[in-house]
């Protein structure tokens, strides 16, 4: 499996400004969150990128993409019909090829030399199937993430065969359906905001959208469950951390994580110590 295409969804009506926020990256350069996400994608070799946006957002997104703007293919989601529908809007761009998919409100810090997206794409290529990146997450964070249940793939410590996907489950449902052997109590495998998907997902979404008629919320999680029924679909526990910039203090957390991983680590630490000292 060779991944040459990527789809970034940024059409959430309340969150479409998040990718335009400015941060200072690991290398000390000020960039938009969108640029940082595109760099994550390009590191995998997938340089044919589609961004799904709200109608009229291209004007602000193209400048925010910086030097990458010329490589981007913008597709508008005409109405807010859900995450699954947003991804489906990229069906013509995807065609019959597997693709890397990232959300636009997450930033990543890898714990190894390879970036998070690289780890995922290499795993998907080796397993030759759809793979979603996941992170063991405390149950208090369940309201923010899609969550998977399944069992470990024999002799592959970080790979799981997905059997169930629930979107933002309650702790009750998670405990009943999503417990994965080997994780600490109260921890679940939550999506990392990064997937390698096969074109089958577009077929599944097509069927779902055709069946739901005028449904206002086409869920990607439901489509992923159907994908798991049709073909081998794995979860891969990435060596890295995701930072959701759409939650309270999310952007601050992401900025601190990036800065503490980069060349300005000492300076940022000194500023934090100074702040703490002033506070007390």
């Amino acid at each position, binding site marked *: 499996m060779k991944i040459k295409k990527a789809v970034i969804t940024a059409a959430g009506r309340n969150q479409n400004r998040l990718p335009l926020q400015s941060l200072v990256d690991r290398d000390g350069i000020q960039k938009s969150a969108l640029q940082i996400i595109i760099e994550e994608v390009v590191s995998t070799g997938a340089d044919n990128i589609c961004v799904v946006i709200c109608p009229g957002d291209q004007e602000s997104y193209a400048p925010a993409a910086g030097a990458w703007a010329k490589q981007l293919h913008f597709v508008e989601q005409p109405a807010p019909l859900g995450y699954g529908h947003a991804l489906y809007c990229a069906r013509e761009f995807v065609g019959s090829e597997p693709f890397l998919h990232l959300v636009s409100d997450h930033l990543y810090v890898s714990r190894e030399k390879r970036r998070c997206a690289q780890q995922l794409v290499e795993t998907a290529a080796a397993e030759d199937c759809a793979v979603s990146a996941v992170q063991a997450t*405390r*149950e*208090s*964070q*369940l*309201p923010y993430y899609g969550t998977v249940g399944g069992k470990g793939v024999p002799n592959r410590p970080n790979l799981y065969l997905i059997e169930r996907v629930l979107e933002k489950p*309650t*702790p*009750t*449902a*998670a*405990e*009943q359906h999503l*417990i994965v052997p080997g994780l600490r*109590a*109260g921890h679940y495998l939550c999506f990392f905001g990064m997937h390698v998907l096969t074109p089958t997902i577009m077929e599944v979404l097509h069927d779902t959208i055709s069946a739901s008629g005028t449904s206002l919320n086409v869920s990607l999680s439901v489509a992923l469950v159907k994908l798991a029924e049709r073909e081998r679909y794995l979860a891969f526990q990435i060596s890295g951390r995701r930072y959701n910039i759409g939650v309270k203090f999310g952007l601050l957390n992401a900025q601190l994580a990036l800065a503490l991983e980069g060349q300005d680590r000492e300076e940022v630490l000194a500023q934090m110590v100074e702040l703490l000292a002033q506070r007390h």
Partner: protein
Amino acid sequence: MRKQLVEIITTPDPALRNSPLESICQLLSLPELLAECNELERFRRRSGNLYERVRALFFLYAIHRFHLPLKPGSAGKGLVPFEGYEHLLQRRFEEAIAIFFEAQSANGPSDAVSSALAAAYYGLGFQTLADQVRRSVRSVRGNQWMFRIGHPFDQPLRIRPELLQHSELDGSFPILREATPVRMDLSHSAWSDIFFLGMDFPEGARVLNISIDLCIKGRDKEPRPPIEAYLRVIDEPVLRLTSVDLSATVDITELPEIFDFAKDYLGLLKAAVIASGIVPPGIEGSRQSLVALLERVVVPGQGLELVSNVNNIPKGSRLAVSTNLLGSLIALCMRATGQAKSLTGPLREEERRLVLVRAILGEWLGGSGGGWQDSGGVWPGAKLIEGVLAEEGDP
């Protein structure tokens, strides 16, 4: 000496195991009965088996309450040690029993000390069962998380967004309503909760039970569920609990108030809020803020109002009103927080089972301690409810 009463408890022979306590006690003299009590006391302390411990405790209760005082040689008058009495009031039954035992050994048996011991054994018997209920309910998947949450920041429940959309007309929030029937037992092995009955007589732990709606002939058009519960978001960071039929209402702003079941007539509503996970049982005694917890579950500055109403059913109706009201309130809270999939319509089977387990937890939290076969109202129609034998690995 023979340990006749311990043998009754431990024997595999059903004929001996089902011997009435009276048949043994009547034949024993006071010293012999006291010796049997000492054996039972030692036995219940060393036994790891729930059935054996509970049966020994209730034997001890019955002996001290009904048999010892009648034996020649037992003093009518006596003094109950005040320290033991204080332990009893604080539900520290083991400590109370130790002090009463000491008094009995020093001064000889008396009506007064036997009465105190009977009360302590009775309390300890129920406490032992309640601990077991807590352990069982806690081990059910879907409930374990509630006992892990000790801080508002850890609370993973959120109110459903539909309940946060206020009316543009008057600013009020939508009201979620749950209506639940009561239950009637058509046949019953005895007027005893299946939990206790099942321990001694497993084949008798069954009840034929129907859900019923009520109406007054000639007045009402058609029968309707007599139990109603309502929930809505309010513009104050409080937990407002109201019972319409009991004319009681309270605004709760502190966490410890929710765990104080004896303070008012709203114990069932408090138990429902806890058993549904809105105020998780694990947060008791954490010294955290209820306002911070409500911020997490609802939104900052807003709270919840929970109202119950039981329509025209007299007290002591034997229709299991309290358990089904608890079930109704828990189902309502579960719907409001997305733990039941749908805001309207019937619950799914797995949701009903969770409501049942949580209603039992609520019953024991609130102190009534019944309800094993009473949640029948949660299931529509007629059903046969049976106990099953415990298996290896069961809690």
